[in-house]
């Protein structure tokens, strides 16, 4: 029991006739990062809201930090931290007062305030009202507030949506640090790259169902988009090259080969060496890295952009 932070079986939730979660099963080991990946409207926030005791599921059983979510809601709340999609900070208070408020409510030691301000690079702005903070600073303060009281499990609902690339990197580093300290992270995201960078395990959520679950590597193996594309001068050299490249598939145009691979220099060099040894050369080489759209196309047969358009 101690090695399992979150245990979910048969989770269902509907609003009227609209089914938001249609039987979700999840298992998150302690001390790992678990990422729930999906487009807008897939049910990610609903899942987080249920797991953090904000709303009740219609059916299913959930254990968080080894406790039943319904029977021991208060004990669960005492052990989790939640940072939602929009920074839930008090604009009229200063950064320091926001943290002090959390310290008071969690009966923690005030000494942690200075440390958290330092750690999140907010010391200089600590005495300013939060209304004057930038979006990135608000997110950081929000996360700092969540850390007061040292929660065992932290839920992050799209923690980097709307952040600039630099702030996103900073947030990733912070998340990695947390896990290094033994915390379990439940992260939702729309970005495959984010899940890939951070998560030990990823579950892909689509229209209230889990369409795939596994390590980032396992998941990417299911995506045909992860490949090197080679274009040859004519169909003859393409088919000749195909015989030298195991796993290569030919496109309908007859001159393009797709070779599974991650685009790393080692595998590229290997690929080029094989072509050399075979005495052929390609007109053009491109590396195709998969994105969320590829995952969705591969797993559901639909583009997630089309999906978004239809659910809005």
């Amino acid at each position, binding site marked *: 029991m101690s090695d399992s932070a979150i245990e979910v079986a048969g989770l269902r939730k509907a609003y009227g006739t609209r089914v938001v979660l249609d039987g979700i099963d999840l298992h998150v080991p302690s001390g790992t990062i678990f990422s729930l990946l999906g487009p807008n409207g897939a049910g990610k926030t609903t899942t987080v*809201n249920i797991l*953090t*005791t*904000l*709303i009740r599921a219609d059916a299913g059983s959930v254990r968080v930090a080894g406790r039943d979510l319904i029977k021991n809601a*208060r*004990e669960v*709340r*005492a052990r*989790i931290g*939640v940072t*939602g999609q*929009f*920074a*839930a*900070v*008090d*604009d*009229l*208070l200063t950064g320091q*007062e926001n943290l002090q*408020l959390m310290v*008071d*409510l*969690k009966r923690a030691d005030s000494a942690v305030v200075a440390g958290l301000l330092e750690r999140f690079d907010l010391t200089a702005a600590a005495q300013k*009202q939060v209304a004057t903070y930038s979006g990135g600073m608000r997110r950081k303060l929000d996360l700092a*507030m969540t850390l007061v009281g040292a929660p065992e499990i932290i839920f992050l609902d799209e923690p980097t949506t709307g952040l600039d690339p630099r702030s996103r990197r900073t947030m990733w580093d912070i998340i990695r640090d947390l896990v290094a300290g033994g915390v379990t992270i439940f992260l939702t995201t729309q970005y495959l790259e984010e899940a890939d960078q951070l998560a030990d395990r990823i579950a892909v959520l689509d229209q209230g169902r889990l369409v795939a679950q596994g390590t980032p590597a396992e998941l990417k193996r299911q995506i045909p988009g992860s490949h090197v594309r080679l274009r040859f001068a004519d169909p003859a050299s393409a088919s000749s090259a195909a015989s030298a490249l195991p796993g290569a598939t030919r496109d309908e145009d007859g001159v393009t080969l797709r070779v599974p691979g991650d685009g790393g220099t080692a595998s590229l060099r290997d690929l080029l060496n094989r072509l050399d040894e075979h005495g052929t050369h390609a007109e053009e080489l491109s590396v195709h890295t998969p994105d969320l759209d590829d995952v969705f196309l591969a797993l559901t047969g639909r583009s997630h952009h089309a999906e978004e358009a239809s659910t809005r």
Partner: protein
Amino acid sequence: MSDSTIMLRRNFKHTLRNPAAVFNSVLFPIVIMVMFVYVIGGAFDVGVDYVDYATPGMILLAVCYGLSATATAVNSDMTKGIINRFKVMDVSRGAVLTGHVVASMLNNVIAIAAIIGVAFALGFRSPAGLTGWLGVIGLALLLSFSVGWFTVALGLSAKSPETAGLGSVPLVMLPFFSSAIVPAEKMGTGVEQFAEYQPFTPIIEALRSLLAGTPDTGALITSLAWCAGIALLGYVWAIRTFNRRA
């Protein structure tokens, strides 16, 4: 320190950081009072000095006018996710709401004190003794408490801070359709009946009787019943919305 004390301290800080809101909720009732007593009131024959007639209704207006700030503040906590933050913590469920109600009452007390001060400056005199004044203060606080809970519920249910502020407008308008400005019997048919049976009229009549030194037991009992009813309705509505909305 209890959760409620911590929340209340947060609300007090908001009040101190946002003096414009307090000033606004004090200023408007004073302007209305000066306008009616000096400009319009002379035209009404109410049997007594107009400022003596108008003061009880102005106390009520001072309470109601402050409510839009409360509704907006509660809604902003709800829509910005601050209430959700508290809900996922092991924090007493009622503490956030109690904090808002008490802060709303504090704002009301400031406005009531200001309006009574202005009333005296405009020539208001009352034969009421200590008991009478304690009764006035007690009833005003009870009203403030009950409409406070109602307004918190309103703030929790509204879609946005703007609609929350708008939602409190009927509460601000109700005193005008009561015996606050003119006696109900001087109003047109329909409005007169509405004014007679709406909750604010007995409360104003009870305040008026206390300030006149001749307590009206009937009006007092009706007032207490209305306040208890509004408080209960507001409390139940607020708690239900608080627990349901995520």
